[in-house]
């Protein structure tokens, strides 16, 4: 995380002095964006840089569902299964992804290409069902659209 410190310094200026803990979440997000997950050395580095107790970093890291301490696949597929999506076919979406990828929620394909997660409301109920691929929302998903999407991602993965 050391190379991100100049960025963190700029962020720090916008918070009142003495409340460095406010930077824990934004810094962890940035570290994860950079590395793909938060490593032990990042935790140690952040504790040292911010001067906060290690437990504070651990607390944030373990509570928020989007933060992770282990690497995941190149494409993170997150299917919403909350009420509106379930009413528009989310169960079929999850079932399809399980079958097509051969993995269950929380698992990664052996080639490291896909990770599947099942999540709660993503705030996209009007265009349900929704599947997130990394940062992007894919809305109004039919099984046909899903099929094409996974094809495209698989092809993109080949070119890596």
């Amino acid at each position, binding site marked *: 995380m050391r190379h991100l410190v100049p960025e963190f310094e700029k962020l720090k200026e916008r918070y*009142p002095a003495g409340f460095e803990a406010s930077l824990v979440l934004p810094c962890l997000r940035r570290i994860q964006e950079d590395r793909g997950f938060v490593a032990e050395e990042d935790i140690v580095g952040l504790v040292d840089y911010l001067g906060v107790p290690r437990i*504070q970093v651990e607390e*944030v890291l373990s509570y928020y569902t989007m933060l992770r301490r282990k690497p995941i696949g190149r494409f993170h597929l997150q299917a919403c299964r909350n009420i509106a999506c*379930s009413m528009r076919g989310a169960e079929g979406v999850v079932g399809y992804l399980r079958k097509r990828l051969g993995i269950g929620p929380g698992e990664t394909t052996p080639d490291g290409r896909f990770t599947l997660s099942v999540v709660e409301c993503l705030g996209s109920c009007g265009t349900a069902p929704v599947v*997130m691929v990394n940062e992007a929302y894919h809305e109004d998903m039919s099984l046909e659209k899903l099929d094409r999407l996974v094809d495209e991602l698989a092809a993109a993965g080949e070119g890596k």
Partner: protein
Amino acid sequence: MPGRQLIMNFEVTPTSHTLEAYRARGGYATLEKALTTMQPVDITKEVTASGLLGHGGAAFPVGRKWAVMKPGSDETHYLCANADEGEPGTFKDRWILENAPHLLVESMLIASYALGVRNAFVYIRGEFDLPYRRIQGAIDEAYAAGLLGAKLHGTPFELDIVVYRGAGSYVCGEASGLITSIEGRKPYPRNRPPRLTVRGLYQKPTVINNVESLANITGIVRMGAEEFRKVGTAKSPGTQLISISGHIAKPGVYEVEYGYPWARFLDEDCGGMLHGAKMKCIVPGGISTKVLTRAEIEPLMLSHESVNPAGSGLGSGGMIVIAEGTCMVRLLQVLLRFYHHESCGQCTPCREGMGWMHRIIDRIVAGQGVPEDIDRLYAISEANDGTTICGMGDAAGYATVGILNKFRDEFEYFIANKRSKCDGRLECLA
């Protein structure tokens, strides 16, 4: 469109969210008016007189929240826009963030001037990517154009707006959970008093308003409270953004003038039911509000004074339409799984109660329910009511009791026959 429009009153194009387009619509003229011709107290008076009710779910009068602040004092004050939109069925703040980010920025500037705030935050849910880029983009544009920063319009007023991104947690939408999150901890809500307007973020007076509530400020200051009150009803002034989803032909975000007939909104504006199905019931304003049947909503208007006496509420405006044939047992299972997943774990009744309820409903759906399970769900809901720091424990109970009261027969059938009375379907078939 269902009545007059105050927020969605422009055509959405690929560039309508930009500063240039916003200015062409008269954007930032109200900020200049406020800074150069009005005192902070005049603005708060105007907002109070407008009768604007909060749009986060509780419909608390915005002016009453603001009136607690002391803009003239030396103490630091904070403003947070609550963009942690996560109540299932609700996606209207996302519309504002994506399509009218400058309206939020201008409103936050005016609100900050009124409240004596120099540092404001937008707390946005972690999964929102485009909405984040749009609001951050608008803030960057405003800085570059000299609309944010120091000495605005030649006055001593200055403001910095920081966008704080969450990382996946429903409880962060609760105002005190939100500030605890900004302070760098898990978002445990806090007991009141003290109110957050007395001791909030970093122990300083803090106003937390929903994105849609804030978005109304510019219009109120531009047209004046008297004109604003000509829209809507006497007790529910203005409009509400309704996010509608589920088994409806045309889901999406609609701006509804308070007082508009509910049935007409569904049948005409939203195109009626999906696949011409019959309506079984509707969630009026986010899953924490009690479901109403079609017969119950038939005579109602979309206003707080019309919906509240029916035993429910417009809440966050997250409306979910449910067709005949939908299995209410499995629907409740989805809701209880959600509440269990999102309980922060601070208060025992919610932490344990959500788990119990989730396991009971799972057992019923697995065909292993017993008749007493229905009473148990009632008992846990009642035990949670009012015994937790935030409203989540109560809300899960309201949602559960709302469904049990109206569809008890489906639960009894499921337990007795070990299968759904409605094929276990959640989807509406063509």
